């Protein structure tokens, strides 16, 4: 009997190993963009002003994808932006069979590109804590807040919420920085708040390439809990005027208060430590040092499973500009060390959105990075730009001094990178193997399990091009678990909640982000790859309020809902 049992166990283990071995080869992502019905093209905004030809080279932006289950049907949907004049944004409702229906018009969120506004990004966040994700459409112009009324309907509440102002906004995140149970809004702007559609001065370009401080900076809006917001930027200690491209939040020192990182084009990134009293301290110099790079993306994740959140920032690395990205390894003492070179994640061309996610469910966070600025004609724009740069005494802030790009390319046709995490030590690019190495000008990455099969899929927003929806078709084998969290005392979407899961002798950390990574918002579900472990030993949830709950006996390969203070429910 004992021998039979041993043989059975051995066969089981061997079978599991074989499945994992199968999963180690093959192409695991399938481009399903067309058949899924999400193939509407993004088009860059063309301007109609004296600087239009010059601006065209620097505004190839606005393609984004943001994921949320806006109708609470248990399947993640995705909002995808366009930027051209009159171009419609798309709210792709998930039909539960890996097809989607664009319901933006019916929902009232399609028409946000007019002659005074161009959509740049979007963010789902539950601003009124009613359990329904609301939609913030980030625009060059006046950004818009749509309240989700339920039943597939949205209404513009921007003015009522106190958010109606002109800014050349390009990114937004939402998290509860003061732990009052409400999601606060952080808006990053690229250009300073001049009317970019009809500028009254030509001096609105970056004053230099490495320390420019004439950009749009960051605006912090405190959520008053009554449907309105107050600009508290100065009060909380966030005084920035750089060319913000992205922001990301995470709790760098595990003190229960989320900190945040600002990636700036043309200059220094900034890292703000949350003082726990409703203010922040800029700790850039001590924590990461002053850089001169072109920061494009911020994502936080514990890539080495040491219990501390690390940060990935893309920059520009081409043969004419060898900046290298940052993989900021968290040293645990409010300082970080860039290990991008050591880990093989430094060079991704003209980097844009990048996202940590465990695509093969092995328990280690992998990384997908999109890139490419302008893919046009064969002629390169590089000599033009460098001819300008070396002109003595040139006034770079004056747009008229910048050469028009015309049909030239700049860091175009770059291959995307899918970095497989090699046990927290290094990363290996497997993008070509898995069919996700396209050469379109990528901007945003959104990660979600659109068919609830435990395998994370990818939505990629491309500038001036169709997006990609990649379905993860990895063979069955590695185990996983997903958690949908609902706050009761904490903000209802549980943004900022950390989950520590122990299985197979390893503890992993994940958290719910409020829109981290450039031009992409991923699912707010927590997803853990468990590898060969079908048993979960322990799950600890640290809610945004700071309260901790520990669970045991949870089952693998399921989506489970956890409500703050009320236990779990397997779906």
């Amino acid at each position, binding site marked *: 009997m004992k021998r039979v049992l041993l043989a059975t166990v051995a066969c089981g283990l061997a079978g599991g190993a074989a499945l994992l071995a199968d999963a180690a080869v093959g192409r695991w992502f399938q481009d399903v963009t067309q058949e899924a019905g999400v193939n509407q093209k993004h088009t860059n905004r063309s301007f109609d002003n004296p600087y239009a030809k010059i601006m065209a080279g620097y505004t190839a932006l606005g393609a984004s994808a943001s994921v949320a289950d806006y109708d609470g049907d248990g399947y993640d949907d995705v909002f995808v932006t366009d930027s051209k004049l009159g171009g419609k944004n798309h709210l792709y409702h998930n039909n539960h069979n890996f097809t989607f229906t664009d319901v933006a018009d019916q929902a009232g969120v399609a028409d946000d590109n007019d002659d005074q506004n161009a959509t740049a990004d979007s963010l789902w966040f539950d601003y009124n804590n009613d359990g329904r994700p609301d939609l913030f459409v980030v625009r060059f112009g006046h950004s818009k807040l749509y309240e989700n009324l339920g039943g597939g309907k949205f209404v513009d509440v921007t003015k009522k919420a106190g958010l109606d102002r002109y800014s050349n906004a390009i990114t937004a995140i939402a998290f509860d920085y003061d732990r009052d149970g409400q999601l606060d809004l952080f808006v990053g702007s690229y250009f300073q708040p001049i009317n970019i559609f009809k500028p009254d001065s030509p001096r609105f370009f970056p004053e*230099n*390439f*490495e*320390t420019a401080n004439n950009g749009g900076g960051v605006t912090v809006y405190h959520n008053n809990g009554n449907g309105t917001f107050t600009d508290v930027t100065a009060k909380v200690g966030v005084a920035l005027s750089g060319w913000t491209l992205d922001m990301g939040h995470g709790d760098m020192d595990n003190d229960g208060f989320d900190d945040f990182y600002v990636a700036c084009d043309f200059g220094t990134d900034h890292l703000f430590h949350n003082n726990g009293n409703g203010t922040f301290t800029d700790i850039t110099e001590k924590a990461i*040092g002053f*850089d*001169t*790079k072109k920061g494009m993306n911020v994502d936080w994740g514990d890539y080495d499973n040491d219990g501390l959140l690390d940060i990935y920032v893309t920059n*520009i690395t081409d*043969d*004419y*500009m*060898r*900046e*290298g990205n940052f993989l900021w390894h968290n040293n645990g003492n409010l300082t970080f060390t860039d290990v991008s070179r050591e880990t093989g994640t430094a060079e991704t061309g003209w980097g844009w959105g990048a996202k940590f996610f465990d695509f093969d469910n092995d328990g280690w966070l992998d990384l997908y990075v999109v890139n490419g600025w302008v893919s046009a004609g064969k002629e*390169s724009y*590089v*000599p033009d730009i*460098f001819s300008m*740069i*070396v002109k003595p005494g040139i006034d770079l802030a004056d747009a008229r001094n910048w050469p028009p790009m015309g049909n030239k390319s700049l860091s175009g046709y770059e291959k995307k990178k899918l970095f497989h995490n090699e046990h927290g030590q290094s990363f290996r690019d497997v993008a070509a193997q898995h069919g996700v190495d396209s050469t379109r000008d990528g901007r945003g990455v959104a990660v979600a399990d659109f068919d609830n099969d435990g395998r994370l899929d990818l939505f990629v927003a491309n500038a001036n091009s169709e997006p990609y929806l990649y379905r993860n078709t990895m063979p069955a084998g590695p185990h996983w678990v997903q958690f949908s969290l609902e706050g009761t005392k904490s903000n209802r979407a549980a943004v900022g909640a950390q989950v520590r899961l122990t299985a197979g002798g390893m503890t992993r950390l994940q958290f719910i982000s409020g829109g981290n990574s450039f031009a992409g918002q991923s699912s707010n579900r927590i997803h853990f790859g468990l590898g060969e472990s079908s048993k979960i030993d322990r799950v600890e949830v640290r809610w945004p309020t700071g309260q901790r709950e520990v669970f045991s006996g949870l089952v693998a390969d399921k989506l489970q809902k956890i409500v703050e203070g009320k236990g779990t429910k397997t779906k």
Partner: protein
Amino acid sequence: MSRRTFACLAARLFPVCLLLASPMTGADDAFDKAERALASKDFDSALGSFEEALTADPDNLRNASEYRQATIQKAIAGHPKEGSPADFDREIAFFGKLTEANPKASNAFLNYGFSYVDKIPAAGSITQVILANNALGYFTKSIELKSTWIALYTRGNSYLYWPRIFGRAPLALDDLEKAYAMQKAEGKKSYHVRVYISLGDAYWKTDNLDKARAIWKEGAAQFPDSTPLKDRLARDGDALKDYIDNVLDPNKRVDTNLRELWMTQ
């Protein structure tokens, strides 16, 4: 042996050192003072004394080179990695004034160019381009005043750091072939290995791999212990490209120490 005596002895042994030998006692005294200050890590005093030595003897290659190395030492001691960009502004300003006051001093212009090169790894990627471009301008001025082996090698090597798209590799080839011809006419010197390396890189960068390998092989025959030559000859295709790209990474400090010119043969 005082530095002046050493320099004079070296000058007899080694023609390039004629550029270094100077009858100016004041300059040598200031140089010796600078060296003593440097030994005790008194960087500010050292830099001041080097400047005094150079003001007295503006075309002195040795004094200029040691001044720049002291600047680099101070920068690295004061800031992590490669120093702060501002650490190099003093020497740039000094060479600016020195060349303005001595418009015929070819070595001063050469070192003016080097002072921009020294700043490159501490600077951001766009500033690197501006600095490299400035350096090229002063290397050219130096060559216009006196077309020496070191100036031609330096400018030719600098062109190699520019991405292919700027079309500067053929210019590198031109300078390095001239430096190669000079050293062939001169007699073997240890530093000549540098031209073999760079000239091969210039051939490689102008898509003439056969000529690149030929010159690297010729260099390896002359300098069989040269690791850079062995490394290049051991690689091909992408591995060779990766190797050379890595060597020519502007974020890495270029060794602009000219001591080899007078310390070895």
